[in-house]
């Protein structure tokens, strides 16, 4: 008899169900088995109607985010061995996103937010490629390095109660990406991106719960990015106020 583990999987089939429900499976245990392996085992051997996203199985493509026992996790980087003490492992679709089906979340809101913050290098004057690389020392790179590690998996959005309350909040991933460019010594677009940080849907929806940074599988620390953004937005607010008092236009 091989040892098995009970995996309870959330199901939601939009064509049949009005609300999600839970289905139990017994999966043969092994030391190396990830939650993703377990889901694939279920799909291949037990119930082919289970739908979940996955691809790289090495925690870099960002496809396979799910809630494992109520915590946002990459299923490929989470192992059954870490849940052996518990009676069962429960796998659900990511919190705070609409559920397309089973474990597949609708992350389009998050992607829209990413696109909003102008996440590309902005230069006042574009240098021709023939002029060579823009210089950047390792120290300068270090200033934005962590914020450039985001794999867009959406775990931070599932962890963020403010995004859960109001999906218009640009959220941890998008704001960290804005800061990734703002802090890049080659970029000159911080002033343009300021409008997104300044908004109520920008950094000011954040109450520094900090759970986004705890669940981030790539140590991006989006909470730090947002709260440094608050300082920047704060200064921007004061400068703008001074300009208005001096009779200049609202920037």
């Amino acid at each position: 008899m091989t040892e098995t583990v009970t995996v309870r999987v959330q199901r939601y089939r939009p064509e049949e169900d009005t609300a999600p429900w839970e289905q139990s499976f017994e999966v043969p245990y092994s030391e190396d088995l990830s939650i993703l392996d377990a889901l694939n085992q279920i799909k291949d051997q037990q119930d082919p109607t289970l739908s979940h996203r996955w691809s790289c199985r090495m925690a870099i493509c960002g496809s396979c985010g799910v809630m494992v026992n109520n915590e946002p996790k990459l299923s490929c980087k989470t192992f059954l061995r870490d849940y052996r003490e518990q009676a069962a492992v429960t796998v659900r679709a990511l919190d705070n996103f609409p559920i397309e089906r089973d474990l597949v979340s609708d992350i389009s809101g998050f992607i829209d937010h990413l696109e909003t913050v102008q996440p590309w290098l902005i230069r006042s004057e574009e240098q021709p490629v023939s002029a060579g690389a823009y210089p950047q020392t390792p120290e300068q790179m270090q200033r934005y390095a962590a914020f450039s590690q985001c794999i867009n998996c959406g775990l931070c959005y599932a962890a963020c109660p403010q995004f859960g309350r109001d999906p218009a909040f640009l959220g941890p991933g998008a704001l960290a990406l804005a800061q990734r460019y703002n802090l890049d010594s080659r970029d000159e677009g911080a002033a343009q991106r300021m409008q997104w940080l300044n908004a109520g849907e920008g950094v000011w929806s954040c109450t520094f719960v900090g759970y986004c940074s705890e669940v981030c599988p790539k140590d991006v620390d989006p909470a730090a990015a947002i709260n440094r953004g608050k300082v920047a937005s704060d200064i921007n607010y004061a400068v703008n106020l001074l300009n208005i008092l001096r009779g200049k236009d609202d920037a």
Partner: protein
Amino acid sequence: MDVRQADIVIVGGGGAGLRAAIAAAEANPQLDILLLSKVYPMRSHTVAAEGGCAGVIQPHDSLDAHFDDTVSGGDWLCDQDVVDYFVRHATEENLRLEHWGCPWSRKPDGSINVRAFGGMKIERTWFAADKSGFHILHTLFQTSLKYPSIRRCDEYFCTDLLLEGGACAGIQAIDMRTGSHTLIAASAVILATGGAARVYRYNTNGGIVTGDGMALAYRQGVPLRDMEFVQYHPTGLPGSGILITEAARGEGGVLTNRDGYRYLQDYGLGPETPLGEPKNKHMELGPRDRLSQAFWHEAQAGRALATSRGEAVNLDLRHLGEARINERLPFIRDLARTYVNVDAVHEPIPVRPTAHYTMGGIQTDRYTATALSGLFAAGECASVGLHGANRLGSNSLAELSVFGRVAGEQAAARASQGPSVDPQRLLARAQDNAAVWEALRESTGNERLATIRDEMARAMEDGAGIFRLPGQMRQTCTKVAELKDRYSDLGLVDRSRAFNTEWLNAIELGYLLDVAEAMAHAALARQESRGSHQRPEDFPQRDDAQFLKHSLVYRAADAPRLDWQDVVITRSQPAERHYGAAGQQENKS
């Protein structure tokens, strides 16, 4: 059926597809460009490339040296005009990525840093720590958002190319959210769907790497070229096959067998280099085909380690020290810790060769045009003639930019000449196609999807692996034919439409079987040993007289039809490939 129109449709949102989209948008901002992918672009498998991206930049390096390394690395099966174009544009493309924000690792003075890579005589591999592909892909994706003319269809699964008057006039796809069919007419179609190493059981590839574009083209009579050449990456994690970058060796990591012996010196790659002093084109920095083959011999001789995850050798990084590992190889450290419970700072990482890259693909000319007018292909799904019989590490990321851009510009030129075909003229055919896919969704046959997939993967490992033995190769051809037959008796369980991944996996399996068929038959037809295609029993030698040719596989009713195409040779005549001391000797002479 949802009916749409665009000027250019790009299938695949990885490095090549995104670069093509940007190039097309820059070439003609008036064009309506549709980037369609079965995953969000940043999920594409470019993301998993680790080591780096080639481009000559050091003063003592030269385009000729990069050319020579690539051509000899490819065992002279590269089209040399293509290689010339490639080496001339790789650096420019890397710089453009830099200008778009790609965080290439730097020297202390702020200039671009480069590292050593296998088969490269001089360090010319640009890198972003050990997440080069990740940074390239995200840079391209984010940059693509700048262009309003690039629209995206995320999570649309391409099922067919649509032809009109002998030219490619559009595609059709399934909207994965709803399961509905969409027809998109376009003046030009670019396939950028990546590789197909998922035909193998142990591979470094993501689950999405299922040869879709290759099969789509193949089904329309476009030949697949050099499909017998499949690269085994010498260092994947045992069990999962997860990639451990060549940069681990470029930075100085060494491979040892069960006895702690650096066995590569026994396979024409020596003499042994001192620890911590990696030498270009020696030992661990030999080309991938040679290293994977050496592992096979070691395992045959019983000198591999037996691990709970299967046979392996040790990749030892310990002498690099924690600081350098954290700076240059942080992802490798994380992967080893997560997936084999090894901290590379204190223990060697067990590794073994796993299927990694398809050198071959959809035949294109040097301008990325396929045999089908209106259809272009770039990236791993294409065979532009760059890699020959064995790709050098870090050439493929550069290929994405160099030829992705060419494809975008070529497609833009074509699309600028005139509007696409009226989609209504494609509708009847698209509806017929849709009916076939609907029948598959409702299929009630006796065969199970996972069974066929696993049997295929095992058969390919047996008959089209690192070493190819005549009996097994023939068996694999027969097996794939049998599996294709059984595939038509597939039974699916899921009848729904919304995100029906069983249905989509079944379509992917059809693609995989087509690609497997092309690989197995091309391998059988190439009666020589060259690069990654090794037949030690029946044809152990390279045979330039007969096989200095590209293989072409055409789809046919029973078994595929084989043909051959001359290799373009401009200035480098085929010679023997030498690495290690022998290579150095040759350089001096």
